[in-house]
């Protein structure tokens, strides 16, 4: 493999790790940190106590956004780094 190709791959993997870590950090905060302070965060939010709404809906929507963003970001990164399957479309 040419040196430049190896470099792209190293950069690709590093970017993947960085985005994975960032999204996992958001996941962790939403899941465990917010929940840890659930009793303190029980102000009214459109009728729901805020922590109740977070656990029942807010966290779920954040999860969906995280996964959707990751798929979009990585599929673009695959193309840009030339590592996508079959010339890029599958």
């Amino acid at each position, binding site marked *: 493999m040419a040196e430049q190709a190896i470099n792209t791959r190293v950069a690709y993997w590093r970017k993947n790790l960085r985005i994975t870590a960032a999204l996992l950090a958001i996941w962790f905060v939403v899941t465990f940190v917010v929940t840890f302070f659930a009793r303190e965060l029980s102000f009214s939010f459109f009728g729901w106590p805020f922590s109740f709404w977070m656990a029942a809906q807010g966290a779920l929507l954040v999860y969906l956004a995280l996964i959707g963003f990751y798929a979009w970001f990585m599929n673009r990164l*695959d193309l840009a780094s030339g590592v996508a399957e079959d010339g890029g479309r599958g």
Partner: protein
Amino acid sequence: MADPSQAAFTRRLNKVYGLYTVGLLIFIAGLAGLEMLGLSRRLIGVIFLLATVLLYAAIGVVSRTTDADEYYVAGRRVPALYNGMATGADWMSAASFISLSGTMYLQGYAGLAFIMGWTGGYCLVALLLAPYLRRFGQFTIPDFLDARYGGTWPRLMGVVAAILCSFTYVVAQIYAIGLITSHLTGVAFEIGIFLGLGGILVCSFLGGMRAVTWTQVAQYIVIVIAFLVPVVWLSVKQTGVPFPQAIYGAQLEKVTQREQALRADPKEIEVIALFKARADEYAARLKDVPAALAAEQQAAKQRVADLRTADAPLAQIQTAEKALLALPRDAQTARRAWTQAQASDESRAQPLGGMPPHGVAFAGDPQGSATEQRSYRDSRLNFLALVFCLTLGTAALPHLLMRCYTTPSVRQARQSVTWSLFFILLLYLSAPALAVLVKYEVFNVLVGTPFDSLPAWIANWAKVDPNLLSVIDINHDGVLQLGEIRIGTDIVVLATPEIGGLPYVVSGMVAAGALAAALSTADGLLLTISNALSHDVYYKMVDPQASNGRRVTISKMLLLVVALAAAAVAAQKPADIVFLVSAAFSIAASALFPALVLGVFWKRANALGAALGMASGLLMTVYYMVRNEAWMRDVFGISAPVDLWFAIQPISAGVFGVLLGFVVTVGVSLATRASGARSDAFVDHIRFPG
């Protein structure tokens, strides 16, 4: 999609499932019409059951196959959207459909741990596993462990873990199938199990993953319609708005106000005092069981004799004689019965029938007494621990991860996870709303109803099993108090249409949806187990020369054996659905999660580390559950005292297993030699899609 045949395939799928959905709606509307013309309820139930099971069977027959690629991974051409839908059905089991809302109805905020855990896990699947598994592109999870780590042990441990968690999980599904079928048609529980089993087998047996995938898409549509119709209906009935997910906050506020009123209600307080008195009486009897039993028998005999001498009406004498006969026969049975009765009365001698305030997070009070502070800390820790186990378990359940192999590409594997979560959220955003709406209905309509005009469904369900639903007029005022009704977790959803006063056709539809949820998950699980045995044990370890056809045949035979074994276990009516399911998650998380994730992200992890990590994590979880969970203690005859660490309940045993699994895998890997060039090359291969 560049591939023209794949594009045509997707267009055909859109047409077929579009027509199917329209047909389904027409079928339901037709039955609703027939109900108005006077079709009997029993018949509606039977028609729903037979029609849906026959439909799944028909899809199974149409998609039958003996080709290994089709049988194991549906030919790897399931488009992301449909793979997402199939994963959704695979995922949403009887626990999601039946027990989730029921748990939230009874436990309020505490039940949300299941909602968060079962969806948050998808973040881990999407970010840490799905694209890499698809790039690897073989058949099973043990395949991955073998290819990454090499050697027999990681594969074998993978097989053991996959079978153990899938089997526990499938028993819970088959149990639920028996429950629903017997409610819907009135047949015995055991016969219900075998009827449902027929529905599962004809599908996975004939067509493997291919048939299961296309059936699951059909089942997803049934599940989601069956769940959303009653919630939306209730919402329109109570608020006039057809989007319960968006507006149930207002209903929750009203429920909370009503909770405060009920807590202060003198009639409710009277009921609580009566239950407390009954519990105290049992406690007094338990102090000296033989003496208390003798006194009870003496009193009952005396009463019969008194009535006889007083020449009382025959009916009264017979009632007294029956009471005498119903007394426990010996001290041991008396002790068991009275301990149970005492615990049950004690639990009902609480405000709101033992339900915590719906919107308040965690029990106890951080500013209260020492006991209240402790209760607050313990309940918060247990909530977080349960979320942790369910999340990591989601990201390690083999039947779910297998779905990563069935898409055409890595790109579509990533999109497929997004679609899965989207389709799952349609139901999961509605489940907490259902719990609140049902609670509103019970608090405002049911409570305060005179006993002689209670709706018929209460008697119907109480007849099926008094543990599921019971009412008792303990203060003899002729009016139902909240403390006087007890509703079991597993019937809240099934009874919702009746609680809300909807037509019976909706009840039939909900039951059919619950059945679809249980069947679709059972299909996926049975396939995982039989594939682990036929592919990983037989083909990879016993006879590597076996032809494709022979492998598929062996897999089909094993499927039959496993299904019958699971049905036999389920017929014993083991612990409740939620515990069985949670146990499966703890087992999967502790045995598989560390080895899978480290396998992708840490090249230094080696075979010995992975095998020992999996084994120790699994053993730790199983030990903690057997030692501390009431039903498991009973099964294994454990007499050593319960020993909880950090007050963590056995349902979250996986916390300890996962931590130990990571520590052992990392420690042993570092202490032994690195795995070498072959494994490094493998990791590099799966990290890049092309």
